């Protein structure tokens, strides 16, 4: 259509591009500022003035971050729980989903009621804590992994995904004498790779970001995560004197160390997050309108 743009068109366009540019800036600049601050000398940052690039470039903050045992341990624990939590969570959730995906499974209705009831109602934090305590999970690495083995959101998505797998694929395996476990392992999982990828990233990001369990369910220093250490240092740099008086002789301040930790925490997410929106819309619809 070779129509000239009307005044309305132009006005709408200008307003939209303006608003979206502001949104874009407000979303990305905070991350950019973190990045330049982490490469700027902590003392220089306190004087202010570096908003576009580090005015006093240094790697000191990172050197300090990666030489402190408490940060290294925290990083190790966070990476560990992310990887182990994602792998175990995906396998466990998929196994249960595979069982439930059979259309003529007996007691299917009952199983679904049990799951959906558990999705909507919970006993609350205190009884949950009592359960963790009774199982001896408090102050163990297991408290990060075991209680999050089953992800009900992805359980529903996986069930609907597995239902779409052509029956013939499985039939041929049954004829060859394979049992359900073999079929799950050798056929269902390999054809579900896109689902598995999204799921593990999603669960992994959840593990990486989680903070309540590290703050309250563990007490040993060796089990604290990166998120916990960040809360700790943020609360410490709230006291201005402390933000300045950190590590005599170097340019690193408590504040610059905090910003460095934040960058370390954000960068892995930055690398994977665009892949995480898959299945989201479908999942919401599954969660809202059940059969």
């Amino acid at each position, binding site marked *: 259509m070779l129509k000239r743009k009307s005044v309305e068109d132009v006005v709408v366009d200008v307003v939209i591009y303006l608003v979206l540019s502001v949104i874009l800036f407000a*979303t990305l600049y905070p991350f950019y500022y*973190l990045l330049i*601050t982490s490469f700027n000398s902590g003392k220089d940052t306190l004087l202010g003035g570096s908003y576009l690039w580090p005015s006093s470039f240094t790697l000191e903050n990172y050197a300090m971050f990666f030489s402190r045992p408490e940060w290294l341990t925290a990083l190790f624990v966070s990476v560990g729980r992310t990887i182990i939590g994602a792998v175990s969570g995906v396998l466990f959730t998929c196994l249960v989903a595979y069982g439930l995906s059979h259309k003529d499974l007996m007691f299917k209705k009952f199983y679904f009621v*049990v799951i959906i009831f558990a999705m909507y109602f919970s006993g*609350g934090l205190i009884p*949950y804590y009592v359960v963790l305590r009774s199982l001896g999970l408090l102050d163990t690495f297991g408290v990060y992994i075991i*209680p999050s083995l089953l992800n009900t959101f992805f359980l529903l998505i996986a069930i609907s995904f597995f239902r779409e797998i052509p029956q013939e694929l499985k039939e041929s395996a049954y004829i060859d004498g394979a049992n359900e476990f073999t079929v799950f392992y050798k056929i269902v999982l390999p054809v579900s790779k896109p689902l598995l990828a999204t799921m593990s990233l999603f669960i992994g990001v959840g593990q990486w*970001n989680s903070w309540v369990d590290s703050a309250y369910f563990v007490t040993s220093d060796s089990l604290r995560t990166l998120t916990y250490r960040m809360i700790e240092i943020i609360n410490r740099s709230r006291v*201005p004197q402390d933000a300045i008086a950190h590590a005599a002789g170097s340019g690193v301040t408590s504040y610059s160390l905090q910003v460095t930790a934040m960058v370390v925490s954000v960068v892995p997410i930055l690398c994977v997050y665009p892949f995480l929106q898959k299945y989201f819309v479908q999942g919401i619809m599954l969660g*809202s309108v059940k059969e």
Partner: protein
Amino acid sequence: MRTNTVVKNIIKPNQSLGWKRFTKQKYLHFFVWVGMLFLLVFAYTPMFGILMAFKNYSITTGISGIFTSEWVGLKYFKEFYNDYRFYDIVRNTLALSFLKVIFTFPVPILFAIMLNEVKNMAFKRFVQTASYLPHFISWVVVLGLAFTFLSSDVGLINKLLVSLGLAEKSIPFLTGSSYFWGLAISTAVWKEAGWWAIIFLASIAGISPTLYEAAQIDGAGRLARIWHITLPGIKGTVVVVLILTIGSILGGGLIGSNFDQAYLFGNVSNNSTSEIVQTYAFKMGLAQGRYSYAAAIDLFQSVISVILIFSANYLAKKTSGQGLF
């Protein structure tokens, strides 16, 4: 649903052979039972644990203590009701929940509509992808960012306001009790609006382009097309998301995380507006070891939540014919 009845007719004659069918599915049932066992331990046992709200429970007695400890009836509920902070806490919970839904619910819809109007695909995709980055960032990092931009001493926004002469001295965004609700709403919008826009964008993408062409030929301008085609087109999705939001409103709606915000952004100075039922229960229980009292406080909120879920569901069924369950 014709296929369903066909399947039923095929299965019916076999139903008498229930045991045989069951043994044939034994692996499947094993898989499912593993999941059921998990839910029994981590979802249903805590539900029974709610009993401790009506009992004098001591943590040293473990799970069995929940059942064997002595009944005290509504003692802890009365205590919460008479707590000098009861009014503040309930007010904060309700204010935070409702304000957050009112202000955060329309933002993703508006954002999605604006994005949809952008004709430059590269710009559109870039803005959209950037906009949901914050969703995947931990609330802890958001706390750190808030500190970086809003704190009284190093906060960039405060420095800017002072240097532009818009404020005489730093505004205590993070510590002033009158700023907490605004802080919670704006950080929630910043973090989650882009993410929830995805679902509305998907819904807009489902609207037939011929409708827009027809409207254009009829002389409808941009705004008229948004108003008469886009908005009615996404109404169904908006209703579904709104129901889900209202069902979880006390947790902060789908935007979520009243707890994370109240806990992480709450401090001694803004305590009078930042303490909510969940954080109070948390502190009473895990910090002070008053488990029965904390469970009672928690249950108080759960009861209100359940009422809200059922009313939202009822309303949904009445208005749009579809519900959550």
